[in-house]
């Protein structure tokens, strides 16, 4: 049978968005896809379509005008998805920290799974980041398979059960409770 999960792990597709970077990190992503480093031989393809992508590579601190698109692209990607922040800018803001039009890194707006440091972060680091992202992707898709319990057993002694607390979150281990 056609098993989507198996192939997703073997050939993840990436979506790349420049949220106000200096182009340094974007070129390094291109270089990672080009013959010397050749991410494409592992099936990693740069797509332009958020609806086909599994891994979201973001560069640059979020500027005032790119944040809308950033969140929009993130929400358009199907689950499971992994967000990788490439470069010091996307992690913490780099030299652009505290300038009037930028935020300090992208994790204010979307959840980040892997941080890749460096200004500019080198292709080797980006490849490491993508490989790390694949592990997380696998973990996430396993979690999605589990039957989703809406409520845990009430464990709080005083009898007050908060729905927010007892809801099972994706990624949380079942064995823990």
């Amino acid at each position: 049978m056609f098993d989507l999960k198996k192939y997703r792990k073997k050939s993840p597709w990436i979506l790349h968005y420049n949220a106000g970077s200096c182009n340094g990190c974007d070129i390094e992503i291109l270089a990672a896809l080009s013959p010397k480093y050749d991410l494409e031989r592992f099936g990693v393809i740069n797509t332009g379509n958020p609806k086909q992508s599994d891994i979201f590579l973001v560069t640059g601190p979020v500027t005032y005008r790119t944040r809308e698109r950033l969140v929009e692209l993130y929400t358009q990607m199907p689950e499971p998805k992994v967000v990788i922040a490439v470069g010091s800018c996307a992690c913490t803001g780099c030299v652009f920290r505290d300038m009037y039009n930028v935020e300090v890194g992208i994790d204010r707006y979307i959840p980040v799974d892997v941080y890749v440091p460096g200004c500019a972060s080198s292709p080797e680091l980006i490849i490491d980041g993508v490989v790390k992202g694949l592990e997380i992707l696998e973990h996430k898709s396993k979690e999605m398979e589990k039957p989703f319990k809406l409520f845990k057993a009430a464990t709080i002694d005083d009898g007050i059960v908060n729905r927010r607390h007892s809801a099972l979150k994706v990624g949380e281990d079942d064995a823990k409770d």
Partner: protein
Amino acid sequence: MKKTINIPLGSQHISLLEPVRFKFECENEKIIGVDSDVGFVHRGVEKACTTSFKFDSIGYVVARVCGLCAITHSLTYTAAIEKLLGAEITSKAKYLRILLLELDRIHSHMLCLAHTCENAGFEAMFMRIMGDRELIMEIQELITGNRIQFDYINIGGVNRDLDVNSVQKVKENLYEVKQKVQGYMDEFTNNWSLSLKFKGIGALSLDEAYMYNAIGPLARASGLRIDVRNEIDYLPYNEVGYKMQTHTDGDINARNIVRLNEIVNSIEMCENILNGVPEGEIVTKVKGKPEGETVVRFEAPRGELMYYVKANGTAMLERVRIKTPTFSCIPAFSHIFLGEEYADAPAVLASFDPCMSCTAK
């Protein structure tokens, strides 16, 4: 009924690195109106230069305006400050600065050529050029310690000396790139299917280039002989064998050929420099605080880059104004699109080599 359709391109697009949005007004495949929006990556660098950084660290901040011509940005700023301080730098530092400037130009032009091919649908050529570009990145890493965003230039000279052992490797790689560029030259002039995509498309005549104030390779491909390297005497460009490259057609093919010729010329200049680097110190001590105002121009890979710096004798500057090459070319860009097929738009756009990071700052 309305006869035209509006087609947007960007801000997120697979073949454009830059977040830029174009709105093409099309009538039966022909573009009859263009609207562009470049402000997506505005970060406020100019303001930050006068409020939160001291003058001796701004060189590293303005380098982050653009990843491709970072070295030109930091050099132009540093030259402005050196002018204000009245500092004299050694001739060895000058030669090393030209070396890195030209290496930067080579890899930037190669990226542009690769992109133009990819957007015209020639994926294999894209991979080929990108693969050969790594040779340049390698030697940049060897000389400066980083592939992109090497903070090589500081006030008074450069940060790292040229390693005697690595010079040999640099020469070998440059020689190899030179061979490859001859191969591209053949491909770009003789490949029939590329010529369908490139010849006669997106033409800018000499008069139009003059009128719309085009600069850089865009103007030189139309036959306008402007190049800042020819006009300044701050760096010894004439000594290292600089030759201006022009073409007369003004179409995408002409721009590619100009870029290829410039790569060859840059390689020659680098070889000349490596053969005759003068002895001496790489840094001279510079004291004092800048005072007064000045304008400094340099030739970035895409054209003339201009910095205006105003200082008042304290560590904080009063004003830093950056005029970037792409900004001056926007009128010419918008004009070229008119009357072209929509299908050619990505290739035309890539052949300008626009840099939105610079433009929006």
